[in-house]
């Protein structure tokens, strides 16, 4: 069973993603901000992380940096999912080492397809 971590401060968005990935047989972890995500990652090593950029406390960029520095997470794929949709934002996300960058509002199907593409 593949593991996925969803990080976003908007509960309604989380709810939609959680339902969808559970239905696709993922073990789902949920964090409401970067700090929570990092706490979870201390003991869990998901295959994919879906990461919002603008969040309270610790933002998506900082979270990614921590992930990249963690050897346990070297195989973990990271997807940014953000309302920041300018080309420069996307380039920045990729250059920081994200495996994909999807913009909000998103098609649930597209997100699922991207995740399968990355984990297969």
């Amino acid at each position, binding site marked *: 069973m593949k593991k996925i971590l969803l990080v976003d401060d908007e509960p309604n968005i989380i709810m939609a993603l959680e339902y969808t990935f559970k239905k696709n047989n993922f073990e789902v972890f949920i964090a409401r901000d970067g700090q929570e995500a990092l706490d979870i990652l201390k003991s869990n090593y998901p295959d994919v992380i879906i990461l919002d950029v603008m969040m309270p406390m610790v933002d998506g960029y900082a979270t990614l940096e921590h992930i990249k520095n963690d050897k346990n997470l070297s195989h973990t794929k990271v997807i940014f999912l953000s309302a920041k949709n300018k080309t420069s934002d996307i380039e920045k996300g990729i250059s920081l080492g994200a495996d994909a960058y999807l913009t*909000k509002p998103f098609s649930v199907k597209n997100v699922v397809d991207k995740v399968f593409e990355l984990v297969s």
Partner: protein
Amino acid sequence: MSSIVLIIILLIYLGFLFFIAHWAEKKGNIKWTNNSYIYSLSLAVYCTAWTYYGSIGVAANSGLSFLPIYVGPIIIIPAWIIILRKIIKISRVNKIASIADFISLRYGNSRFLGAIVTLVSIFGILPYIALQLKAISETFHIVTKTNSSSLIFNDTTTYVAIALALFASYYGTRYVDASEKRKGIVTAVAMESVLKLVFFVMIGVYVTFFVFDGFDDIYKQASQLTNFKEKNTIGDLTQGINWFFLCMVSLFAIFLLPRQFHMSVVENNREKHIKTAIWLFPLYLLIFNLFVYPIAWGGNVLFEGTAVNADTYSLLIPQLFSNEWMTVLVFLGGFSAAISMIVVSSISLATMLSNNLLIPYTFLGKLNTEEQVINNKKIVNIRKIAIFSLIITAYFIYRFFALDYSLVSIGLIAFVVIAQLAPAFFGAIFWRRGSRLGAIWSILIGFSICLYTLLIPYAIGITSSSSTFVNDGLFQIELLKPFQLFGLDYLEPVPHALFWSLLFNTFLYFAISVSFKGNYRERNYAEMYVDIDKYSTNHENAFVWKGTAYTSDIKKVLIRFLGEDRTKRAMHIFNTKYNVASDQELADARLVKFAENLLTGHIGTASARILISSVVKEEKVTLPEVLKILEESKENIIINKKLTETSNELKKISFQLKNANDNLVIKDKQKDEFLDTVTHELRTPITAIRAASEILHDDDEIPEELKKQFLQNIISESDRLNRLIDKILDLEKFETGKQTIHPTNNNLVQTIKNSIEPLQHLIKNKAIHVTIISNEKVYCSYDDDRIVQVITNLLSNAIKFCPETNGKITIKCEIENNFVKTSVIDNGKGIDVNDFETIFDKFYQSTNQNIKKPLGSGLGLAICKQIIEHHKGNIWSEKAMNGANISFTLPIELQRE
């Protein structure tokens, strides 16, 4: 006291002066030597031995008449701020080193006029220097109780004269450029001015309070003497006229005496020093004159019936009481007064003698070698010899002529002679039409009349009553009696001579100037002198000159006197100042004038002109042409000034534009950020709605419960979207001024209660304790709906941040001056001090890029701020005990616009 002891004291004293001069010369520009007090005190070179001893003599013999000599200067000194400033400016830009330079340059740089001024000055001043030597000699003999020796080598004065001649010729010619400042001499003279004043005041106090019993006592005793009353009134009208002329002559003297011109103009470092001199110098004169009367009449009382020279009372009185110490100090004061006059006068006369007479008439041809060092050595030697011979000549005059006369009489003669320069001098700075011919004739005639009515009779000796010239007039003609010329018999000799000489002098100056036109050069300098303020920065522009000149020729002349290095530097300055290319082959008028100026200090104005003329080919310019050129240059200056003003204004405007632009850029950036944030905020609910809808649409197997939940999410996110749009529009209306408020008179406490009501269920949920601290009623005028909005917002925030248990919210309402202050305080986690101001920015989390602060829409406080500011109130957050404290004020009476 024995001669030897006194001579030793004198030597020590002179050594001290040498030391001061040396020190000041070495230190150069430090505060101690270059300040307005040194300048003002150095002007007191005006007070010579005549002041020091002679005033007492006059006061003792004829009462008040010693005063006009001080009243005259004091009358004119306030005008220094205009006249002296002008003279200093003219002299500075033209490198003028003496009054002869000053007058001759104005009248077309006339060599002849310069020579005349020099000769008149020497005639007037040499006897005056002799008088100082005489004073030194006489007082020396009084202090040592010896008789004057007929042998030159037994006369101490001989050695004093030689020492002074050495001192003056050494320190007076340190620089080849005569317009350079001589700090050593100036500082030494200022020092002496202090000493002579201190010693004079000391003897004054001694006589008044130790010999006598104060001013009253002297008066009581003196009023018993015969003639006391007659001597102590101004007298009748004739005496009044005498007074008038004496005031006038000394008024001129303060400008025209070569030593005064030298100290006040040539040695002036900064124009603003005049400001101090204007009060300090008259004060100095006042203090000096304070004790003249007590000493004079004290002396009259003490020496009644004995034949002593009243001039020397200040020495005789302490001597009478065997106070040797005091006697020597008084002597040193008088010695100071005498030698500062001798030194400064001889330096200024020597400058004139060399630069305006000897060099232009005889030595100029001999300065033609190419070697700068040799030329400069020659110039300095000429001046050294001049100073030396002037003092020595004065010494001989003292030995052979001046022995018979009182200090005052010879001093006054000098004043009258020098006053002959007055019309040409003052005309120079105030009257454009004054011409060279007028100036030459006025001085010559004035001086001739002086010669006839004063110098010759005095030289023959007024004491020898057998002189038929004095008693019966020239060729026994009654009308030509030197002291009663043309039958004018009620003036004393000095005012009499002044009256006639100045009458003819002034008349000729005006008559000739008006009748004969001067040449273009005179007119050119006239413009530059009279309008110096317009030309002082770029005066070379105002010099009218036409012809052909080569830069290389002019350079060669300059090198002969300035040397290779200084010439190069000077040319560089010139080229930079006027933006002239350094390889410019042909020289223009400005360079000609510039070069003349550079040479002037070394060899005088006339010689400078002659030298430069010898290497350039000048064309005659007609008078109308001069005026035209000057007019143009004046216009140019005005246009330049306007251009500068306009360009300054442009600079200012462009600066403002840049600021406005910067502000716009900032605003633009803020707008961009705002839009960014707004789109982000709008996209968030849309994302949730889109995701939920997609699932509902695609997934048929979704459980009923979840389906409902997703639908509920869609509804709440839509509402959120709508609220957000409302708030954005609200804020936009306030910011663009489209939103107006409608104030009415309300009870603020009631409004607060009304705002709490809809929030009650939230408050109860968290079991928060809410307290209102206020009077029952606080009325002020505001828009009720809007203030409800503000308070609701603040309360919602407070509720949100209150801890889960023991939450406390306090609302305080108090009146401060004309405002009502309302504070909402919670006991939550509080606000970071750094965020005190930013929380009122829209979407303030946006300033911290990617970090969101959990504060709802991020627009609430921004809207509150707008509302409060539209009420002319203030909103801010401040430190609370714990938790947040946001306060706002509302004016009690809201002025409607």
